[in-house]
């Protein structure tokens, strides 16, 4: 395959990915059955002798821990919050997809599969996505049985809505708090297993290293965030369910503690990192209000069903929006995409907002905002109806901005929301390190270059309740593996790496706070590896990140001590890893000389400025191996047998 010239200084290319372990079948619909049949089983009496470590208690981690605990394995779980119930999954608002076809509106497993592959701009793996669609129906049953209070209709049956621009109503929801209710269901199942002694839970513990012995993942090194104590935990297999890395941008809709440390440490021990540059930028977030801003708040996508998005036609028009007459407004989405209007997919809506702001037509502080206007909706449906539908979102907006959205249009701007990239996994969700499995947002998963709304919750729970518990047994059947001793050189080395890093952070005693480095990294990532990327910009970003990394290790200021609760030290570790990840993201973005999904390369667009894919050259997963002299690229070719590749069009 051709490699464009001039990029050799950034990476080398290794052997292609040989095998994803997807079974060979006549039709894709038989694949998951075949895998479950062929995977070796572990008899219940032997499960007691096998141990699994799970890092993370979000949807992907809590569901796996509860299920594997119930199945009889010894499970040890970790999370950095003070309770497993606080994992970031709790913040998801909109809903969860499932191909139940309860509406009788033509939905099916195939349609969910098709929508997901197309939505991902043909950069996801057919086999995994098909299984996701198949599993989706079981998830809803499981959650209802746990007492998850989904929205219901007057007849007592479950309600559905359409979400994220698809034409069927397959999204199940629990008001604007679907993630919370699903996570509480999984959390309660987990707590039941903790009470039963099947799962040992360690809250306020941060995993800082993977232990790899004889090429297999055998444990983790963690720091007790309350006391600072470092400890090693060993097991027969390790599962990372540690969430996404959107906080590499500093500002994002992710929780403050979301980080890449667990997966990055695994990457440095040999796990491939796939498609790191695929990030999702959500179009409807509350804009930045000042330099002190610590996070961005998502306003549910459902607002685009009734709100109209516009900016003034004139540059730098700072009139009160209510005084701008109709013919001096540009409803740009309706103008450019008459067929989909305000409901175009997330990546397209985000980029369009950026474009009008780049033209100096943005509104609000710094000109970084567009209006989302409900005046027409209020006139059409009446204020009471708008209030019933969106009241809680309007309240949230009012609380944060101090403005009343019933009277003046909301201001919104895109923000980093989700990361499609993550550790590379095969069909069994096993990484390139044997015995290391990765679930949920932490893996590179099923969403290709762009994720559809309501699909992350589905994937997290599919992975944790149904996929992993039916594949990890194939690996564990060969166990219990030789017992690893705490004094094994590989164990000691992992522990020493952690201790040395902490000692280093505390000894630098520089002049710049961790946050100031994080903010600067975030600016670089947003400017050059955000909604639009170019070769020139990415090269600039890579050299700036390298400098920043050097400065960080010479001049960072970490207060306090190691053997105590020390939030400055916690953040230093996370930012150190973000600095390394940021560089790999830029290299990945630089090498992918096409536009696809959330990855828009300025050099690769159609005459109308739309994303232009190059399937002949780039229809592959970029799986990066960590190498001492730079990253090594392994390509996994994507073959489409069940969906025809097309250029997406929403005009």
């Amino acid at each position, binding site marked *: 395959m051709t490699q464009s010239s001039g990029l050799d200084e950034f990476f080398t290319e290794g052997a292609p990915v040989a095998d994803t372990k997807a079974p060979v079948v006549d039709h894709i619909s038989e694949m998951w059955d075949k895998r479950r049949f062929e995977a070796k089983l572990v008899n219940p009496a032997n499960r007691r002798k096998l141990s699994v470590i799970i890092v993370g208690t979000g949807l992907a981690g809590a*569901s796996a821990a509860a*299920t594997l605990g*119930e199945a009889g394995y010894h499970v040890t779980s970790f999370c950095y*919050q*003070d*309770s*497993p*119930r*606080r994992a*970031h999954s*709790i*913040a998801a608002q909109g809903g969860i997809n499932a191909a139940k076809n309860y509406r009788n509106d033509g939905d099916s497993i195939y349609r969910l599969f098709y929508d997901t592959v197309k939505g991902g701009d043909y950069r996801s793996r057919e086999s995994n996505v098909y299984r996701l669609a198949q599993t989706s129906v*079981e998830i*809803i*049953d*499981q959650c209802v*049985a*746990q*007492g998850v*209070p989904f*929205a*219901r209709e*007057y*007849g*007592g*049956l*479950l309600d559905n809505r359409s979400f994220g621009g698809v034409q069927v109503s397959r999204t199940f929801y629990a008001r604007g*708090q679907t993630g*919370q*209710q699903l996570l*509480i269901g999984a*959390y*309660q*199942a987990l*707590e*039941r297993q903790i*009470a039963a002694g099947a799962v040992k*839970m360690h*809250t306020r513990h941060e995993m800082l290293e993977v232990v790899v012995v004889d090429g297999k993942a055998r444990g983790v090194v963690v720091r007790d965030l309350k006391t600072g104590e470092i400890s090693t935990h060993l097991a027969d297999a390790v599962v990372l369910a540690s969430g996404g890395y959107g906080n590499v941008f500093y500002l994002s809709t992710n*929780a*403050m*503690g979301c980080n890449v440390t667990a997966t990055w440490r695994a990457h440095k021990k040999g796990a491939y990192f796939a498609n790191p540059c695929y990030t999702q930028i959500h179009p409807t977030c509350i804009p930045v*209000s000042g330099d*002190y801003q*610590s*996070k961005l*708040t998502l306003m549910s996508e459902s607002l685009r069903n009734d709100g109209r998005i516009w900016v003034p036609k004139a540059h730098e028009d700072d009139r009160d929006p209510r005084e701008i007459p109709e013919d001096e407004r540009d409803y740009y989405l309706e103008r450019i995409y008459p067929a989909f209007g305000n409901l175009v997919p997330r990546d397209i809506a985000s980029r369009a907002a950026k474009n009008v702001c780049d033209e100096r037509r943005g509104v609000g502080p710094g000109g970084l905002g567009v209006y989302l206007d409900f005046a027409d909706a209020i006139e059409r449906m009446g204020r009471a109806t708008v209030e019933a539908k969106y009241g809680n979102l309007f309240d*949230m907006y009012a*609380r*944060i901005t*101090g403005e009343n959205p019933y009277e003046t249009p909301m201001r919104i701007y895109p923000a980093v929301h989700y990361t499609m990239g993550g550790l590379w996994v095969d069909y069994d969700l096993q990484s390139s390190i044997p015995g290391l499995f990765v679930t949920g947002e932490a893996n590179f998963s099923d969403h290709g270059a762009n994720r559809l709304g309501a699909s992350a919750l589905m994937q997290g729970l599919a992975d944790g309740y*149904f996929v992993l*518990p039916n594949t990890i047994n194939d690996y564990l059947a060969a166990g219990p593996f030789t017992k690893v001793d705490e004094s094994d050189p590989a164990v000691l080395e992992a522990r020493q790496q952690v201790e040395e890093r902490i000692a280093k952070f505390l000894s630098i005693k520089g002049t710049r*706070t961790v*946050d100031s480095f994080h903010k600067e990294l975030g600016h670089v990532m947003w400017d050059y590896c955000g909604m639009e990327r170019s070769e020139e910009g990415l090269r600039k970003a890579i050299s700036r990140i390298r400098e920043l990394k050097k400065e960080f290790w010479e001049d960072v200021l970490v*207060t*306090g001590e190691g053997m*105590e*609760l020390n939030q*400055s030290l916690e953040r230093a570790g996370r930012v150190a890893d973000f600095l390394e990840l940021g560089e790999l993201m830029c290299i990945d973005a630089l090498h992918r000389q096409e536009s696809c999904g959330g990855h828009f390369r300025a050099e690769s667009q159609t005459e109308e400025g739309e994303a232009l894919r190059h399937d002949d050259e780039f229809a592959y997963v970029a799986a990066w191996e960590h190498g001492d002299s730079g990253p090594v690229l392994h390509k996994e070719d994507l073959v489409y047998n069940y969906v025809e590749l097309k250029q997406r069009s929403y005009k």
Partner: protein
Amino acid sequence: MKINLRVWRQKNPEIDGKMVDYQLDDVSEDMSFLEMLDVLNESLSVSGEEPVAFDHDCREGICGSCGVVINGIAHGPEVTTTCQLHMRSFADGDTIDVEPWRSGSFPVVKDLVVDRSSFDRIIQAGGYVSAPTGTAPDAHATPVPKKDADHAFDAATCIGCGACVAACPNGSAMLFTAAKITHLGLLPQGQPERDSRVIGMVDQHDAEGFGGCTQIGECTAACPKGIPLHTISRLNKDLLGALARGEG
């Protein structure tokens, strides 16, 4: 605006803490309360002092991590979480006291951070439906009247923040416990374990050292999710019924 802060500083559980004064001169009213503390922490760090430790994560009012007592009120003057409180709720020149949740069952870990693991143990004592993965019938097998589903949802919105305990003169966690009893008790899926659930959870509540409920109502007033007091009446009714049926 200018803000005078008096913040509880306590290095660890073994050492006594005290209130320490700080002044911030340049606070914007659009800042959230926690962003105001971030600004304080950046300036403390630069001058070589230890920043104030506090719990937070989502900063969207949903994870339940944050929570401090502000001028004597759990989560401060508005009915919301600490992270969703904004500085426009205060005036230029105000003095603001910031303290951790005060309860024997929530020991202070450091500064404003407390240990709320007792809540997890109350859930372990029965706050679930036993539904092993894979055993579930079709989701539509049991319709649930919308009214019940909506009320169950109202109770299920509890974020486990602990403000109810901090606000209660008795240090009771009955509102938190009752929210879960109500959520699961209203749904058909929660019926088989209804008696053992309420007995187990109330026993654990007491074993953790939380106080008894005397229906004062401070908990509801402080609750950012507006969990109503009548959930506690419901818990009491369930408990009496369960005891009468001789469960537990």
